[in-house]
């Protein structure tokens, strides 16, 4: 069985992440719009900047964190590397590098998606159009996943795509939950108030998990049940735990099928994270400080990405092949 180029493995890993990131950005902007509208008149768009750690680069734009400015910053600002336009632009560039591997349909969809984003006007970003725009972005990202599932040849590129998407989704879900905590619980007294419940409700809907949650918890809607659901429930496909498991399973299968047995550090990290999440209880997470706990997961996911890069992307080192020079090869146009 032929292996794929290391560069291509890295490109498709990042391609999947960039699309998933845009999917999540659209979800976060969408719920934040809902929250800021409901939260007693205060339109707190800075919370989105905080949750991505973008306060400083936003300040450098010289704009005040109004709804318009923040929405523009996260959707159309080509100087913000995490804006949807930038992410999909990079995904498209990666797709261009991957054209020999991916299906034409995958390429055409990303290319059209990117062309559409480039054609957006200011009016399309106005708050009254935001929900529609976020839906468009979300659906386009899901279309990418669907076309990929239906058309991508199941060689190594499929596994790297799935691993990338799962890691990004795990990371993004931690941020989605975090936004709730930063925005919704300014004071402990807000807990349990009617407005609070409506907002937890919105959070679950934005992750497309409301009905599944209700089926599991018909009676209650507490921070602990919602956090438990979004972070720890292995049956909810957007949860952190489920995503970590998906990444782990695909990595495992990749090793089995393609004989990547020499180094296992990535698998060790992923298995450890999966085990921690399996043993964790939502109440303990909250008691220890949810924000820090979520931060910790993000750091772990970063370590997984680094290990993956060392193992598969930077150089191809195996015992039975000559060692390549350590000095050649620029990095790919990836992350």
């Amino acid at each position: 069985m032929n292996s794929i180029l290391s560069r291509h493995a890295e490109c498709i890993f990042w391609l999947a992440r960039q699309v998933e990131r845009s999917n999540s950005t659209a979800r976060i902007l969408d719920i934040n719009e809902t929250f800021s509208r409901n939260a007693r008149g205060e339109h707190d768009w800075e919370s989105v900047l905080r949750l991505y750690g973008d306060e400083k680069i936003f300040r450098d734009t010289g704009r005040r964190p109004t709804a318009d400015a923040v929405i523009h910053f996260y959707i159309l600002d080509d100087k913000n590397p995490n804006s949807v336009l930038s992410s999909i632009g990079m995904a498209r560039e990666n797709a261009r590098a991957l054209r020999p591997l991916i299906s034409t349909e995958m390429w055409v969809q990303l290319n059209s998606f990117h062309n559409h984003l480039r054609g957006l006007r200011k009016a399309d970003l106005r708050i009254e159009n935001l929900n529609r725009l976020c839906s468009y972005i979300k659906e386009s990202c899901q279309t990418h996943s669907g076309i990929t599932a239906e058309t991508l040849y199941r060689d190594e590129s499929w596994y790297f795509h799935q691993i990338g998407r799962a890691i990004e989704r795990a990371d993004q879900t931690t941020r989605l939950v975090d936004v709730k905590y930063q925005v919704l619980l300014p004071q402990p007294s807000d807990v349990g108030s009617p407005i609070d419940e409506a907002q937890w409700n919105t959070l679950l809907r934005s992750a497309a998990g409301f009905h599944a949650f209700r089926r599991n918890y018909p009676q209650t809607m507490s921070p602990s049940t919602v956090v438990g659901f979004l972070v720890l429930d292995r049956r909810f496909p957007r949860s952190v735990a489920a995503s970590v498991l998906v990444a782990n399973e695909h990595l495992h299968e990749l090793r089995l099928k393609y004989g990547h047995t020499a180094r296992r550090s990535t698998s060790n990290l992923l298995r450890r994270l999966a085990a921690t999440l399996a043993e964790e209880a939502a109440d303990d997470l909250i008691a220890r400080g949810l924000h820090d706990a979520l931060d910790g997961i993000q750091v772990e996911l970063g370590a997984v990405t680094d290990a993956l890069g060392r193992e598969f992307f930077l150089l191809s080192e195996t015992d039975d092949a000559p060692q390549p020079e350590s000095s050649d090869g620029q990095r790919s146009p990836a992350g």
Partner: protein
Amino acid sequence: MTSWKPTGLLEDYEPGGFYCELFGAAKMPAPHTRTVRERIDGLSLAELRRRAQAAEHELFNLGVTFTVYTDREQIDRILPFDVIPRVLAAAEWETIERGVVQRVTALNRFIEDIYHEQRILRDGIVPADLVLGNANFRPQMTGLKVPFGNYVNICGVDIVRGGDGRFYVLEDNARTPSGVSYVVENRHLTQRAFPDLMRNIGVRSVSNYGQRLVGQLTELAAGIGNGPSVVLLSPGVYNSAYFEHVFLAREMGVPLVEGRDLVVRDDRVFMKTTGGLARVDVIYRRIDDDFLDPEAFNPASMLGVRGLMRAYRAGNVVLANAVGTGISDDKAVYAYVPRIIRYYLDEEAILPNVETHICREREGLEYTLQHLEELVVKPVGESGGYGILIGPHAGRNALAEFRRRLRATPANYISQPVVQLSVCPTVTRSGIEPRHVDLRPFAVTGRSTWVLPGGLTRVALRKGSLVVNSSQGGGSKDTWVLE
């Protein structure tokens, strides 16, 4: 043949005295295009435009584009596609095919001779300084054997049709000719947008190009082990022909690699994969000689692979095209190709050159000086910098200046009459009008030479223009070779 007169879309079409690819000329009708003519004539302009627009939109979404980079952003442009096809009769194609095979064969014999015995130079057929002093002459190739002695494995020959209805070679492209992806994509587009136009006509297929190409390239590595590994080496996504590299890699089913994906160990070439280093046997390279290996050529090249020439010289990897083929497609050498064909093959050129006067030869110089107002004067080799003189458009001072230069350094120039390129009906803002076209067939050579039936028809979209280059307002057409 009963004479047929258009009564619809083509009623007012007037080729303006040029040979027309669809209507022929007064004394040379083109009976083979009758069905196509009738069908186009039956369409409305609005319908044609609607389908053309849909086709261009599809090209854009498919990313069949070349990329122009500016400081601020990248702009993807499609090569404008004109929906009215250019149609070649079976007999016409047969001549072109034989002519291209003959030409490629002779060029390969020439290159082999130059890097070995240099008989043709000693026999005084081609001036030695023209070849050995050429910037594209690669001394590194001296004495190196290449598979079947075939250096030019992929060749594009630029052909024009004159007012007499005959085909002439304008230029050879023996280094890294591009454009074949458009040949195939244009066909796919026509099949989707104009199934009614093509029905039951019997157009020869172009869709197996990738398969033929990889077959021929594999043949080149016959000695290197079993199931040779072929790759396509591209400068990367920033190259304007990147789409074509992707297209070809996909059609061939081989990895598309960049220089940074390859590494040379013990004079062997490997690519870096997730599973370790994997051996590479044949490289279809779309990078110029200069950038191929910083160790052997331009030391500043970031695109190439250090040590590649060592591996090549050791016989551990095949490069297609071989290094050093640029000596055969130079403007100065072009003038000698009919003699090169005679020298090696003892045949007359099936496809003549455009009449060319070699100014380093006394007769050529005298003729050029006497007819300067009617001729195009071109600098040869790397001696350029003075540009081209187009006699009919030049002022008195420019003509005088060129006379002086021609007398001072005649060896730097060749001259040709202005070729009246044939025209083809083309969709324009003001309806269907004649526009000038050329033709670039593609020949693939492993053990033997195969020519893709058709080729790239480039069309000068500006009224009256003879310049078909995509950088200067050129577009392309689907090219039909009839069965």
